[in-house]
């Protein structure tokens, strides 16, 4: 079939396309969910198909099919060509691509223990034990889940690239929801929204400590019911790594996507305040803030060998010493900037075109230990684990809520507070960053549910972060 697919690209070239590529993708997923001592669901899915992307006369066409046969490859290729012609008929803009090596290579993410080979009984037992340990009088819902995903991809293009990749992801987490009838309070471990995820094998789950952390999560959820509300006001704020990961995601990752900056997402999730005139000039954060995009990072959920345009994985700076210095780019947007692509184009399956997506977008570690940072904070709030998120259509005004907060007085965490919310304007917030913790507390948080595009695409990305402090942040909402 590979030869037939190559032949299809040769034919497209003969038909005068500027460029074409073909991606064949086969994916397997397994999910196990346990709730209150019952297995809530175990599902396995497999999905395969291919898509052909054509650039002709500077206009794009894409078609795809779940049926992999010679006739269907032929049909899909001619439909993609027809769609490109339809695009050309109404588009004044002509797309061009930056140069790229036609890589011939294979790549796979590393793991020690194949997650699909671990017996189902063992996975269920782990979750059952963790969920059992979370049960208690005030706990209405105790849940745990494990998710495993493997994707095999073949990429071919008219320039001669031929890349095969196998990516394996593992993830999981637990959460306990306490209720007294009037209110519900949830605690999650190691993160909310299904836990933590990595391009690793089952060893990642074994090292997670789900059972070991279950009682703490239970107790914190129950204690939140009677905890005081988080006070309102302008305070010094320390965010834990997992909440900071989402902060990086929404306020740096998305606004540096160059396709978004150029308007392709306006009608959906909006544009970006990081307009072209700001590149290399705009003070995005304090001079402590270094943010990188690094698809080469071992174990990240945004780690790969090549992106879905066949561009090799890279590490680049988005923000350096607080200055905005780079976008996430594709071959098309790279050409627009007069640069080569930095390799961030990914599609969430064979039936979607690649878009610029975050890879592993990281706040580089600083020098503080978390202990010293708290001790150095006279009065403040420490917030852990995301609960709610919202940001405006230019990625400026944000509001996040977390599951739990801790008041800090005279350098010590003194009491638990509930329902914390903080809000701000992106560059003002990052400019107020005056301390970042060191590599000892730096962790790559996997985010498996990043949405973008129409038709909707869900991407797996990651953020390396350590806790950091921000001065005078608005906490609480006047109601």
């Amino acid at each position: 079939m590979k030869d037939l697919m190559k032949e299809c690209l040769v034919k497209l070239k003969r038909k005068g396309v500027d460029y074409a590529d073909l991606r064949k993708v086969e994916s397997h997923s397994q999910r196990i969910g346990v709730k209150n001592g019952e297995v809530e669901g175990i599902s396995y899915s497999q999905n395969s198909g291919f898509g052909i992307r054509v650039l002709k006369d500077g206009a794009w066409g894409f078609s795809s099919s779940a049926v992999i046969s010679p006739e269907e490859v032929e049909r899909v290729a001619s439909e993609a060509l027809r769609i490109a012609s339809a695009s050309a008929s109404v588009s004044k803009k002509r797309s061009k691509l930056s140069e790229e090596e036609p890589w011939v290579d294979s790549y796979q993410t590393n793991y020690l223990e194949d997650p699909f080979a671990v017996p189902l009984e063992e996975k269920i037992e782990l979750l059952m034990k963790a969920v059992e340990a979370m049960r208690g009088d005030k706990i209405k819902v105790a849940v745990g889940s494990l998710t495993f995903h493997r994707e095999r991809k073949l990429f071919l293009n008219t320039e001669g690239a031929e890349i095969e990749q196998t990516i394996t992801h593992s993830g999981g987490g637990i959460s306990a929801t306490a209720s007294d009838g009037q209110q519900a309070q949830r605690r999650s471990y190691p993160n909310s929204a299904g836990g933590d995820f990595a391009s690793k094998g089952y060893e990642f789950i074994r090292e997670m400590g789900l059972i070991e952390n279950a009682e703490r999560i239970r107790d914190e959820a129950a204690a939140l019911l009677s905890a005081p509300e988080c006070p309102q006001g302008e305070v010094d704020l320390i965010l834990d790594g997992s909440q900071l990961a989402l902060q990086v995601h929404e306020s740096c990752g998305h606004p540096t996507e160059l396709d978004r900056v150029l308007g392709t997402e306006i009608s959906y999730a909006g544009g970006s305040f990081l307009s072209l005139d700001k590149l290399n000039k705009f003070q995005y954060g304090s001079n402590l803030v270094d943010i990188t995009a690094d698809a080469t990072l071992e174990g990240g959920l945004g780690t790969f060998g090549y992106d879905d345009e066949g561009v090799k994985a890279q590490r680049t700076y988005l923000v350096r010493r607080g200055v905005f210095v780079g976008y996430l780019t594709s071959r098309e947007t790279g050409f627009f900037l007069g640069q080569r692509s930095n390799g961030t184009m990914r599609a969430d399956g064979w039936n979607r075109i690649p878009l610029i997506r975050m890879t592993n977008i990281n706040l580089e570690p600083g020098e503080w230990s978390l202990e010293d940072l708290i001790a150095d904070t006279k009065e403040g709030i420490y917030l852990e684990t995301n609960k709610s998120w919202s940001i405006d259509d230019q990625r400026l005004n944000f509001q996040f809520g977390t599951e739990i907060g801790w008041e800090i007085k005279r350098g010590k965490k003194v009491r638990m507070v509930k329902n914390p919310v903080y809000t701000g304007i992106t560059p003002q917030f990052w400019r107020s960053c005056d301390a970042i913790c060191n590599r000892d507390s730096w962790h790559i948080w996997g985010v498996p549910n990043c949405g973008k595009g129409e038709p909707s695409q869900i991407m797996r990305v990651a953020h390396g972060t350590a806790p950091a402090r921000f001065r005078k942040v608005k906490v609480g909402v006047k109601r």
Partner: protein
Amino acid sequence: MIGKERIFETLQEILASAQADQTEAIFIGSQRGLTRFTNNSVHQNVAERDTDVTFRVALGKKIGVASTNSLNKEELREALKEAVEIAKHQVETPHFSSLPSPGEYKEVNTFFEETANFTPEQRAEMVRKVFDKVEAQGLTVAGALSTGCGEIAVLNSLGLAAYQPLSAATLRMVVSSADSSGYADFLCRDIGTLDIDGLAEVAIKKCLESRHPRALKEGRYDVLLEPPAVGELMEWMSMIGFGAKSFQEETSFLSGRLGEKIMSEKVTIYDDGNDPAGVAMPFDFEGVPKQRVFFVKEGIAQGVVYDSVTGNREGKPSTGHALPPSSRSGPMPLNLFVKSGDGREEEMIASLGRGILVTRFHYVNGLLNTKEALFTGMTRDGTFFVEDGKVKYPIENLRFTESMLKAFSNVEVVSKERKAINAWWEEVGAAVVPALLIRDFNFSGKTE
């Protein structure tokens, strides 16, 4: 389109071979095209053909689920075998009693040839009309036009066999100037009802009227929410409160409050999969006929939607609101309606007196405090200050943080006209909502 006969024939043959007490097959097929544009130019133009077959098997009360997107019989058998294997290793699901028995479905026309067969060239011609209108005003437009069709079939070993062909067309557009934007959208099973010129004019008018926005201090204002803004709120109300899962887990704002007055008597919210005023779909993903379910009736909390397992937990029948078995959300209302009132747009602005007119919200999040239905979000694409019952000037976008129970308790006028609003489940449903005049709504911040 594969067609009812071929789908039934293929899946019945596979089901007959199942080594399980009960077996179910859910088929979802789609054939769609989408043209996406920005800066008056097409930047993405795509087509896809996909299928998905999910098997759910029961060995006693042990359930296994596996899916494949292949229609190859050997691969279908493999997926079924995988579901049986999973069930063997499962522990029992206590509230599972049986797959549903065959039901009677209302006849609803959900398929229109013109929508199903709309070509890339026709989509191009349609967006060209929008480009021409927008360019004539010196503006730009971004958006997406999607057309296509699908099929949903549910079969099980108890003889249940349901099939529905579907078509859907959606268009969303944002017209922009240097300092403003305006929004319009369309969702219908029949693209023949799309007035492309009229829709473009709505977005252009909003954009032109939004130019040179002024900053307005955050605070409490009376608001007139147009249908897209109400639709965004309803999407989150459904997710956090109208399904049996959140109700039983006591995180829903309806938990423990049935029979209580929780909103204004002017507010009635229900789900009706058989009403063609929305994007109808007569059965759910277990093949159970959809019932009309009231969540709030004249301000009084009424109930939630169920699938067979969550219904069993309370000794109630399914209301026909199951999602596919791979979903973790539990049953959900996909065909939501807010009952219309008697308000007319001009009169509602006059009744508003002094306040804010909101075209739509952006990035709403309803997880701040689900028991209070405390939401946050931003305004976008047309926000206006109203004074003396007239639109005075456009304003910069504001953030709201407000309890929806409080907001919907302060509803004063409900519009007569309603509109179907795009949501993530657009293939099988929509929220059909009116405009709402709400007193004393909290705007907690503003953007730059």
